[in-house]
């Protein structure tokens, strides 16, 4: 609390049971299609979770598995080269025939890029706990 960091939260319903969403979330072939080209990935606490986000550019993400509970939780240290480290957490919950996925990107450092300018439309209600949290539902 009070460390000047934010959390971004996105909530998404996916039309497949948790076992399938988990596979899409964690299998290297799938990761390369939805997230980025994976390097070393080992789904165990402390294991690497390396990503290459674009060819040639300095856009490697040094990831490490902080917590893993198959078909439920995947939490990663998220350290893009040249940026402040943060934490990314995926949490799956069965929801009828499908799955609710909650993504939290935590410990985002405000100093990284306060320069971006846009309009403030959302209400203060969106600012929760020590965080500015924004949910989108679909």
């Amino acid at each position, binding site marked *: 609390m009070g460390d000047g960091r934010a959390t971004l939260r996105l909530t998404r319903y*996916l039309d497949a049971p948790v076992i399938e969403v988990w596979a899409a979330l964690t299998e290297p072939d799938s990761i390369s*299609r*939805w997230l980025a080209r994976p390097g070393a990935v080992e789904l165990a606490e402390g294991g690497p979770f390396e990503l290459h986000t674009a060819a040639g550019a300095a856009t490697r993400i040094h990831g490490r598995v902080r917590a893993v509970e198959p078909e439920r939780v995947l939490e990663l240290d998220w350290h893009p080269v040249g940026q402040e480290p943060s934490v990314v957490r995926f949490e799956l919950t069965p929801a009828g025939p499908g799955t609710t996925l909650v993504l939290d990107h935590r410990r985002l450092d*405000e100093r990284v*890029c306060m320069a971006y300018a846009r309009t403030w439309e959302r*209400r203060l209600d969106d600012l929760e706990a020590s965080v500015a949290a924004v949910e989108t539902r679909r």
Partner: protein
Amino acid sequence: MNALAALADPTRRRILELLSEGERGAGEIASHFPTSRPGVSRHLRILREHGLVRVREQGQRRLYSLDPAPLEELDAWLERYRVFWTNRLDALDTEVRRRRRARDDKEG
């Protein structure tokens, strides 16, 4: 301390919510909290120092109002991550469907 750190305190967030409804006097703001009047004054000072509230004098009264500029910056900064993850989760959705189609095809 940056704007996020100033927002970390629940009393300060509640003060901003009050001010989002319109300008308020210090006494009126304080009446919403069990905290002592000096306590609320301290929170107002911190909010002012971070540019989150403005103050003007009207006779004996000090009237406080919201300054949305730091919140706009904060939101613009978060927007970058929001766009990134929204795109990635769209792709995950597509991938989940692709896998299901592939499995259905295999099962005939």
